[in-house]
């Protein structure tokens, strides 16, 4: 069976990327926004893997990059969650629209 062409995978990842971006823009719940960031990162991961497998199969650089991205993302999420919890204590909400005390 012949492979799925690279272009399809790239299309997929790009779609994913923009889905994430869309989610980030449209969701008002902070947690959901975090999830959309995860989507963006995952699209990036797919890119790396795909490029690695299709274009440069003799090295595993892309794969490793993916590993690190996942790890860092985890760290990021942990910090964010902590902040969100604290924010909830202060604002009694995690709606992005309400956390706009500072502007202009």
């Amino acid at each position, binding site marked *: 069976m012949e492979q799925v062409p690279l272009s399809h995978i790239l299309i997929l990842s790009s779609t994913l990327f923009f889905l994430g971006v869309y989610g980030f823009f449209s969701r008002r719940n902070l947690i959901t926004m975090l999830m959309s960031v995860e989507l963006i990162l995952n699209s990036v991961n797919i890119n*790396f893997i795909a490029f690695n497998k299709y274009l440069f199969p003799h090295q595993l650089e892309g794969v490793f990059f993916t590993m690190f991205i996942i790890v860092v993302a985890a*760290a990021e999420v942990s910090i964010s969650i902590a902040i969100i919890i604290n924010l909830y204590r202060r604002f009694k909400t995690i709606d992005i629209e309400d956390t706009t005390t500072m502007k202009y």
Partner: protein
Amino acid sequence: MDIVLMFRFEIILAALILAIFIMSLRGFDTNVKCFLNTMNVLLLLNFIAGWLPLSEGSYFSDFFRTNGLIVLQKNIINLGLLLISLTSYAWLEQSKYRLEFYLLMLSSIFGVYVMLSSGHILMLYLGLEMSTIPIAAMSNFNLKEQRSSEAGIKLILSSAFSTGIMLFGISLLYGAVGNLSFASVIANLHPNALTLFAFAFILAGFAFKMSIVPFHLWTADVYEGSPIAVTNFLSVISKGSVIFVFLTVLYSLFGGLKEAWLLGISIVSILSMTVGNLFALRQQNAKRFLAFSSIAQVGFVLVGITAASTIGSASVVYFVLIYLLSNIAAFGVISAVADSTGSESLQSFKGLYKSNPFYALIMAVALFSLAGVPPIAGFFGKLFLLTAGMKSGLYVLLGFAGVNLVLSLYNYLRVVKYMFIDDNEAHLAPLNRNRQLTTALYICLIGLIAIGFVTPIYQYIDSLCRF
């Protein structure tokens, strides 16, 4: 031995972090003054250690590299670290989590080191993240304050977003060149749609960290919300270090796309200068004001960067050094005023000269340095940036820079007017001064006066920047 010397920054820092852990276990931080002074001494030692004899080279198959310039940059960062810790003494005295503060700050610095001496985009990415994530936590340090947590969430989320964007760009770059070590990127980077696209995304990532217009919008809010010490750290250390890295990224990594990024950089530079100054025009909150001023300053840095040569990087490094001193001095004074008046509004600076000539003078020197007025060092810093910028003959860019010189002068003179000309209806009492803050301010003052006139400094930087 060699390797120790080469890794000395990282080693010392790791040691410090470890030490803090141990302290936290042993509860050494019960005696506040002792703890803080120890930390300051340690940081001083760290700064001195930075000047140990240098050794160039690279390890881990070029993932980690170091050379004179990088060492110098790390030293500058160390200096900033020391000064910040000195200026934030009073605040830390009251704060409950001073130990965590140092912990997070040092780990962020660790990230900065990694970033500075990275030889591979992976390392670059890791360093960037390591330096950013702790700051998010730091900016949320006043747990009891709404604004603080808002700042935290804004920073972390938008940085996560920008990371996503940058990573997407990196992945495309990977697709284009196949190996992300600097050497190979430089070797086989050719201008085509893919690489240009990738470049735009990566540039955005860095622009976000340097808060270049239009990627700057988080800056003001985060600066305002965070504790002053953190704002100081953000505006000086993280911004400065990213600028340093940005030099390498543009000059060596994307050297192949020179004319492309020349255009891009000039555009965002004009935008940053103008927008930054225009926003600073209306600010009443001191931190917010400095946030926008720093945006404008980065715009000027970009003018210098366009030179793409020795003079470019030399002038940028020189400027960052001066900028660091001026900003720390300014924030130091702001913190002193804020501590005693409880307000961060510029209005509270009215008549400062009558009540506290010392602070007023420091502030004035710092502001003049930012505005680029002789004989303060900032003048030379800024004009060398412009001199570098003229190298590529971009009259338009220079024209905007000139207009913005006028605008920024207005912004800074506004504060000077508050301090020297206006008099305060609610007369300001002499502020309390602690030794640490005073020392830091004196260092900044001497630095700001001397750097302009002690010629070897610039010559040293210049000699390091020749490549």
